């Protein structure tokens, strides 16, 4: 039932209706119904019902679609109301009127919608009749329940009285004068046959035969659809009546295709729209026939449909109506399609009428075969036949069919055929602007190729591949390019210069096809990420200059991708480092790399990002022994820091990012030789002044102060823990060995920072944060200083602050206290700084 509901919805969507509908013979029912409530049921003259001429008027009227639909809903309500006020005769009469609406097929595209609306009304009536007879069977006239019918009751369970009522309904419906409403009404109450006989298959067969009397192809097709729908109430394996339906439809279609275009009054324009209006019926009936069919039954069905001569002789070379064939092929079990593929292709070849495009049937078989490629036994014969057939097609049809068979060609390594196909495509497509449909097929084909082969070089080496790729444009082109990039960067670095060049061009194409204005758009993220990944995966080995040149080229080509520029800086830094590790003299090259980075960084938005990149580059410069470069870069970094809050101050500060960047800077400063010209400690002092000038949170400031304290403590050691890995750079420990002014300067800096630290903690508003920052500060102090009478009170004060803020059992608190205790006992051991 759910299936039917969705089928109805699709049916209405498939044939969109213009706003206005011209109504002719149906107008009376529709137009009169508006006033119908005012009339009493007795004024509905029965003779009106029996006289179609009376309700048909010569002049056509126009009514809006919406109005029409709401009129039908009103009629439905009225039928319902009449029924529940015990006026069942009126319900029946109105239902007949509604059914009669289906006699007018001049509404064309509206017919499917009309069918859905009318069948809803009739289904409702059918349900009501069913309920009434069931009630009669279960309840006595005084309302007492005397029996209850099982879900799967038999005829013998039904009392005579209920049977009599049921029989009367069939008699009433059977005496309707006109054929179409008579069939529809019997179908509406068709489920009620269950009260009278076990299997009404004879009646079904009769209704199918009666439908032959409807000469209008559209009316009869939808009538058969309604038969198939109502018969579903009797689940049965006997599909004979449906087969007759299909065979009758085949006859009608043959008649349509053999008559002149003008033969069908309403369908003068073309037969195609008519056939496509009939298609849903063929589709539904075919589905009903082959739903869950066993192989034995499928064989039987094929014989009965005239597809197979007999179970033994199988395909007999008789043509089949192609639209019927299409829906048959859609529903046949996969193994049958695979097993009889060659015969099926032959059948398609002889079934070339205009009810359906032949090439779509070829395509369908290909798609069905792909469901189970391993089961196909006659691959060569199939592919040969298809290649032969399509060689006469134009580009669009060629692509659509070939696309369906490509997986078979690929999985069976039919390289010769693949070559032919690509060659043919490039021949057909050359000098031609590809249409949307063609692009879509081409996209599907190329994507299939790409997913089949393991590496991108192999695909590039296929004849005509690149040529075909070049012919594409628009979003399909981008999608294929993205697949290529994804595939190329999937496993490991790219070394081959030709491949790299091709991929670079593909990236360029992708970049230019992508909407630059909306680069931040989520849709385009994927493209940016793929291009960036490609750039990152390029590896020119020891040909460093070429790699740097490549980076320069990328910067020019993909300037709008921010993510990529970061990668460019990393790559150039990485390149410099590699060159340095090489041992040979590469100073000039390293300088170029550093210059490249230095120039690139400012165009990347985000000061923290810039700061980190400058630091990274500075580190590389230091590694290369380029102290002055490194100093400049660190200055640039400090500048970033300075501008950071000014520009982005309105937003919340990224404390963690900032903290880690400054910590990183501090650790870098350990290696940087002090510059006496500007003052050895001018950088930490700069940082301090920035901290002071900003209104960062006390928590962040406190942590930054701790970083400076650790830095000073480290610098004051006689031997620094690490040095720049370059022979010509001396660390501060050597430069200022025994220099008391250096120590003094460090001391005075530290002292003021220490005071700042203690002060700022008091300003932290959050208790929990104040507690943990106190402990953090205390830990920093204890590990940086010797514990003496100056330091101890500070530590004690911090511990007190922490105690006042935190739980006494807090683990951080207890471990800090024990750490402090341990260091107090070890106070005799010389520590870093003495105050």
């Amino acid at each position, binding site marked *: 039932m759910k299936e039917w509901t969705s089928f109805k919805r699709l049916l209405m969507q498939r044939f969109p209706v213009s706003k206005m509908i011209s109504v002719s013979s149906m107008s009376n029912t529709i137009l009169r119904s508006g006033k119908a409530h005012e009339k009493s049921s007795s004024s509905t003259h029965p003779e009106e019902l029996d*006289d179609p*001429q*009376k309700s048909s008027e010569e002049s056509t009227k126009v009514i809006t679609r919406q109005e029409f639909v709401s009129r039908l809903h009103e009629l439905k309500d009225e039928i319902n109301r009449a029924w529940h006020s015990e006026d069942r005769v009126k319900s029946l009469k109105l239902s007949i009127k509604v059914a009669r609406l289906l*006699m007018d097929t001049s509404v064309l595209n509206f017919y499917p919608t009309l069918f859905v609306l009318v069948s809803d009304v009739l289904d409702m009536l059918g349900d009501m009749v069913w309920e009434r007879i069931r009630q009669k069977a279960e309840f006595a006239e005084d309302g007492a329940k005397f029996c209850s019918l099982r879900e799967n009751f038999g005829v013998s369970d039904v009392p005579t*009285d209920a049977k*009599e009522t049921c029989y009367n309904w*069939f*008699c009433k419906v*059977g*005496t309707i*004068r*006109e*054929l*179409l409403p*008579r069939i529809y009404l019997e179908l509406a109450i068709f489920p009620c046959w269950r009260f009278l006989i076990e299997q009404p298959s004879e009646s079904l067969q*009769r209704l199918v*035969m*009666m439908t*032959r*009397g*409807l*000469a*209008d192809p559209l*009316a009869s097709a939808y009538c058969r659809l309604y038969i198939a729908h109502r018969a579903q109430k009797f689940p049965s394996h006997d599909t004979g009546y449906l087969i007759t339906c299909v065979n*009758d439809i085949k*006859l*009608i279609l043959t*008649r349509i295709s053999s008559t002149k275009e003008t033969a069908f009054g309403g369908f003068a324009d073309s037969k195609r729209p008519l056939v496509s209006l009939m298609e849903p019926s063929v589709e539904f009936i075919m589905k009903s026939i082959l739903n869950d069919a066993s192989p034995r039954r499928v064989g039987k069905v094929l014989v009965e449909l005239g597809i197979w001569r007999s179970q033994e002789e199988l395909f007999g070379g008789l043509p089949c109506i192609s639209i019927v064939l299409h829906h048959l092929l859609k529903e046949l079990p996969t193994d049958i399609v695979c097993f009889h593929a060659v015969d099926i292709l032959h059948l398609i070849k002889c079934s070339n009428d205009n009810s359906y495009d032949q090439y779509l049937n070829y395509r369908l078989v290909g798609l069905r075969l792909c469901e189970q490629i391993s089961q196909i036994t006659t691959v060569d014969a199939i592919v040969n036949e298809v290649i032969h057939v399509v060689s006469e097609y134009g580009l669009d049809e060629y692509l659509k069919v070939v696309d369906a068979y490509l997986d078979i060609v690929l999985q069976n390594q039919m390289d010769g055929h693949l070559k032919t196909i690509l060659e043919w495509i490039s021949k057909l497509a050359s000098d031609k602007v590809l249409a949307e449909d063609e692009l879509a097929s081409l996209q599907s084909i190329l994507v299939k190729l790409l997913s089949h082969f393991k590496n991108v070089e192999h695909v590039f080496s296929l004849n005509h591949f690149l040529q075909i790729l070049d012919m594409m444009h628009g979003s399909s082109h981008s999608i294929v390019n993205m697949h290529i990039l994804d595939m190329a960067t999937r496993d490991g670095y790219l070394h081959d210069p030709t491949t790299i060049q091709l991929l670079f061009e593909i990236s360029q194409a992708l970049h230019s096809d992508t909407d630059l204005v909306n680069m931040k758009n989520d849709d385009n993220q994927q493209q940016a990420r793929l291009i960036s990944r490609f750039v990152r995966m390029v590896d020119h080995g020891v040909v460093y200059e070429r790699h740097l040149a490549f980076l320069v080229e990328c910067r020019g080509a993909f300037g709008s991708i921010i993510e990529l520029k970061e990668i460019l800086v990393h790559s150039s830094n990485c390149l410099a480092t590699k060159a340095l590790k090489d041992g040979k003299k590469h100073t000039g090259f390293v300088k170029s790399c550093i210059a490249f980075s230095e120039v690139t960084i400012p165009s990347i938005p985000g000061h923290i990002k810039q700061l980190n990149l400058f630091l990274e580059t500075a580190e590389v410069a230091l590694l290369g022994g380029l102290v002055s470069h490194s100093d400049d870069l660190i200055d640039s970094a400090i500048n970033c820091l300075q501008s950071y809050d000014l520009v982005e101050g309105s937003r919340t500060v990224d404390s963690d990012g900032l903290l880690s960047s400054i910590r990183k800077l501090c650790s870098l400063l350990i290696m940087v030789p002090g510059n006496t010209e500007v003052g050895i400690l001018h950088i930490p002092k700069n940082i301090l002044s920035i901290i002071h000038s900003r209104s960062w949170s006390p928590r962040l400031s406190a942590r930054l102060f701790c970083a400076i304290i650790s830095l000073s403590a480290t610098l004051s050691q006689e031997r620094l823990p690490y040095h720049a890995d370059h022979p010509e750079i001396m660390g501060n420990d050597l430069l200022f060995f025994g220099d008391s002014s250096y120590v003094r300067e460090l001391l005075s800096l530290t002292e003021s920072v220490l005071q700042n630290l203690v002060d700022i903690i008091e300003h932290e508003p959050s208790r929990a944060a104040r507690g943990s920052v106190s402990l953090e500060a205390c830990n920093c102090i204890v590990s940086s200083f010797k514990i003496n009478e100056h330091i101890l009170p500070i530590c004690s004060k911090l511990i007190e602050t922490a105690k006042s803020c935190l739980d006494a059992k807090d683990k951080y608190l207890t471990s800090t206290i024990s750490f402090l205790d341990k260091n107090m006992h070890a106070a005799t051991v010389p520590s870093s700084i003495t105050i």
Partner: protein
Amino acid sequence: MSTKIELSLSRPNRIYRPSEPLEGKIVVISASSISHYGIRIVLNGSVTLQVRGGSAGVIESLYGVLKPIIILNRIIEIEPSGRIVSGTTEIPFSITLWNPKEDNSERFYETFHGTDISIQYLATVDIMRGYLHKSLSATVEFIVESDKANLLNQPISPDGIFYVTQDTQRHPILPELKSGGFRITGRISTQCPMLEPLGGELTVEASALPISSIDIHLLRVESVLLGEKIITETSLIQTTQIADGDVCRNMTLPIYVVLPRLSTCPTVLAGPFSIEFKVAIVITFQSELSRRHPKSDPLTPRLWMAMETLPLELVRTR
């Protein structure tokens, strides 16, 4: 002070066969007790014949209603004189309709309500209360169907074969029909059990003009003997369309006509009257002429129509 009396039959559809007892109960609802001189049921069955129109002339029409033919007229005592207590009293009864011992020459015709002929059976209950009081009575119609013993045992005769072509028509037809020709063949039952649909099939083998509709008309022929003359009235009782539009050639269409239960009965050929049936197969062709003519009597032969009429015997079986 009101007293209600009702005659309630045992079967909701009120159908009885002559050999079966007519069963039911007399229901009296009364506020006080009633004394009476006896309760009886009167059974009455008769054929009413009437002449109006049809082949009857002006003079015959003047006769109006003929003397009815009595099939059944019996009075059965249900209870002798006595009293009915107040409240609801139910008095069951069971009456044999056909008494073989009695010399009952008339047949029990089946109930039928036609244009000129009506066959009706009535049961009336009377509670006689002497001269001072009006007697209480109630009447109900019951329906008689033929007895199983009388049912036809002979096999149903084979279907009638028909051919409808331009040469079988007894009325003038359109010249293009005459010259172009048509051929519609088939078979249809000529004897049909009452409870079963009239069956058959039809095939359009050829037709020069496109077909507009094919209909099966069910006709009833009532004949009444009036003096030396037989007055016949033919009426159309049902039309069933079996083809709508120009159907495919050489495709077999089923003929399946459900008989209208109220206006049919088994074919009767009695001396003073008869009830017979016919089927007409009418083919209407698409033509400009037919569009210009307003809808008229479907039985009148027209230029754009072809027809074939076959006799039909309705029988009671099973």
